[in-house]
């Protein structure tokens, strides 16, 4: 039993099922991020937790109480909307205390709560303004403030940062993280930005087409993606996926790929459980940062393999340089230090950290190793 339990929940609009048997259990104080491409059902799930959408099947409970059919205002949740949804005719102060007023909290208490939260979010000087007189970042703060004054059991965020410009988004992201570390309230946060998901969450649920593809800590999701969808959705640039064949050499499984000129290359696989795959095709997944120049390779890794190949493109990006090569006919991106001596059109000795490699079944797209 968790703090917020979503068990076996489905949602249908008419005859179309948009959420299929979702099971997520959230502990108190967790920061759960629902991430996935547009239309995968993140907002629908969040709205069901909030009580704004009906539950077709299954059960949602908060603090051990089943809330199916309970009115949104009686679930002790607060929500921050993508458009902020500030009441245009009320001042910032009135906006933030409206919920308390509706719940019959006396004025002195409301004012006290307002003052505390306003101070916490540094919006004390804005309390008498109307939402129309605020900048995007300020509106964002007010929307969070409105949720905070309620002191709810669970915070729900629906893409709260997507209306901000790139720089402000990063700042607010940090701020939300700080806030969570300070208050330790349970949060469910929807985003389609995988970086937001990685940085903010204590756990991530990756969703696609109404299914939860994987639920786990950010590191688990990143290092051991459950399937090809999660592998390619999380991470930027995306994980390189290379078709390979498993061959046995020296009693150990090796992944056979081809270089830009079609010559075979063997990469020893660390993952022992691939023995049964001898002679069969797999998809080898290697993250860009696991392919470097020899000097930049991870010193703690016991499985750095050298791989000589032709460099097709280099893209300096300030801190890193992205280098493209061709493996088994696919473009593969390597992430190197900015000063790595690598030039397009030349051969280069890439260092591949095979400890970080994962293998997928080409038919089911599920991970088979490690």
């Amino acid at each position, binding site marked *: 039993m968790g703090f917020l339990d979503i068990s076996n929940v489905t949602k249908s609009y008419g005859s179309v099922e948009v959420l299929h048997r979702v099971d997520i259990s959230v502990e108190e104080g967790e920061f759960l991020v629902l991430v996935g491409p547009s239309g995968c059902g993140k907002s629908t799930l969040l709205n069901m937790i*909030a*009580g*704004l959408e009906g539950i077709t099947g299954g059960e949602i409970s908060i603090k051990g109480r089943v809330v199916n059919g309970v009115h949104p*205002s009686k679930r002790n949740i607060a929500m921050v*909307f993508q458009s902020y949804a500030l*009441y245009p005719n009320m001042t910032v102060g009135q906006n933030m205390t409206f*919920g308390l007023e509706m*719940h019959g909290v006396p004025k002195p208490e409301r004012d006290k709560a307002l003052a505390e939260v306003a101070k916490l979010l540094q919006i004390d000087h804005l309390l008498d303004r109307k939402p129309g007189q605020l900048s995007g970042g300020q509106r964002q703060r007010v929307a969070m403030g*409105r949720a905070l004054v309620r002191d709810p059991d669970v915070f729900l965020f629906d893409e709260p940062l997507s209306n901000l410009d790139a720089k402000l988004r990063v700042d607010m992201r940090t701020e939300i993280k700080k806030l969570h570390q300070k208050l330790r309230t349970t949060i469910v946060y929807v985003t389609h930005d995988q970086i937001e998901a990685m940085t903010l969450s204590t756990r991530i649920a990756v969703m696609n087409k109404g299914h939860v593809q994987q639920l786990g800590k950010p590191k688990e999701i990143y290092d051991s993606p459950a399937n090809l969808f999660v592998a390619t959705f999380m991470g930027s640039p995306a994980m390189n996926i290379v078709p390979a064949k498993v061959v046995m050499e020296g009693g150990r499984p090796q992944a056979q790929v081809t270089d830009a000129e079609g010559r075979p290359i063997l990469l020893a696989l660390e993952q022992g459980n691939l023995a049964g795959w001898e002679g069969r095709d797999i998809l080898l997944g290697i993250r860009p940062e696991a392919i470097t120049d020899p000097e930049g390779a991870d010193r703690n890794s016991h499985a750095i393999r050298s791989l000589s190949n032709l460099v097709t493109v280099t893209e300096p990006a300030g801190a890193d340089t992205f280098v493209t090569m061709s493996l088994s006919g696919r473009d593969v991106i390597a992430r190197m230090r900015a000063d790595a001596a690598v030039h397009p059109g030349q051969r280069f000795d890439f260092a591949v950290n095979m400890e970080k490699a994962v293998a997928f079944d080409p038919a089911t797209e599920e991970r088979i190793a490690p």
Partner: protein
Amino acid sequence: MASSVSGATQDSAVSTGNVTRVFIYLVLILFALFYLLPLYVMAVNSVKPLAEITGGNMMALPRDWTLEPWGAAWSTAQIGVSPTGLKPYFLNSILMVVPAVAISTVVGALNGYILTKWRFRGDTWVFGLMLFSCFIPFQIVLIPMARVLGLLGLAGSVPGLILVHVVYGIGFTTLYFRNYYAAFPTELIRAAQIDGAGFFRIFWRILLPVSGPIAVVSVIWQFTNIWNDFLFGVSFGGTSQPVTAALNNLVQSSTGVKEYNVHFAGAILAALPTLFVYIVAGRYFVRGLMAGSVKG
């Protein structure tokens, strides 16, 4: 030269020379005068003794100014069988128009709120039918309406007229408010629900405060239509006829001399309230219409 200067300084898209400009203004002024002519004739002749009208020129200014026709039209002129003037009928109209406008506007606002923010199965059908009611000609409903008013015991009374006008106006007011509220973000309603506000509280605290422009549209539209209505007034007014019906009686009376000056004064009196509403709220009318149509 002049045209190049005006082209650079005026922010109109088309640059025009001075001659064209003068010409355009002349034409516009002529048109304005032409449109004002009836009002001028009415005003001027309402302050002349009758002899001056019958014996002279309709366009001339009065030689002897008098307010007597106004007094007569208001309180002593023969309306039907009794010499009451327009006063009691004017009062009837006000007693009818104020509640009718208020009720139809409030109901329209509630309908618009429900049809956009509390959607239910078949709501588009309901709205379609209400829209359809805007196109039903008055004459068609006369007999069924008479029957309904009879059954309700409201025939020939001011409340009866209020009911008729409310029923007839709801289609329009619903249309206005529905289109206006369709542009209102639904996330706000959801936020208010989470905050714990109920159906009426959301309407009252969140929606109504931003409904000013469309409320003005609805009020003007309903006010002018109901005030100017003649057919329903004559048909269902009974002993509480509105001012339009009384004015008709005054002007059409077949006995005695035609007192044109009194007729003119009466006509202006009957038109004053709508004129007043337009002057006070006219610019909000256009603004509100635009807000509704552009956003919706």
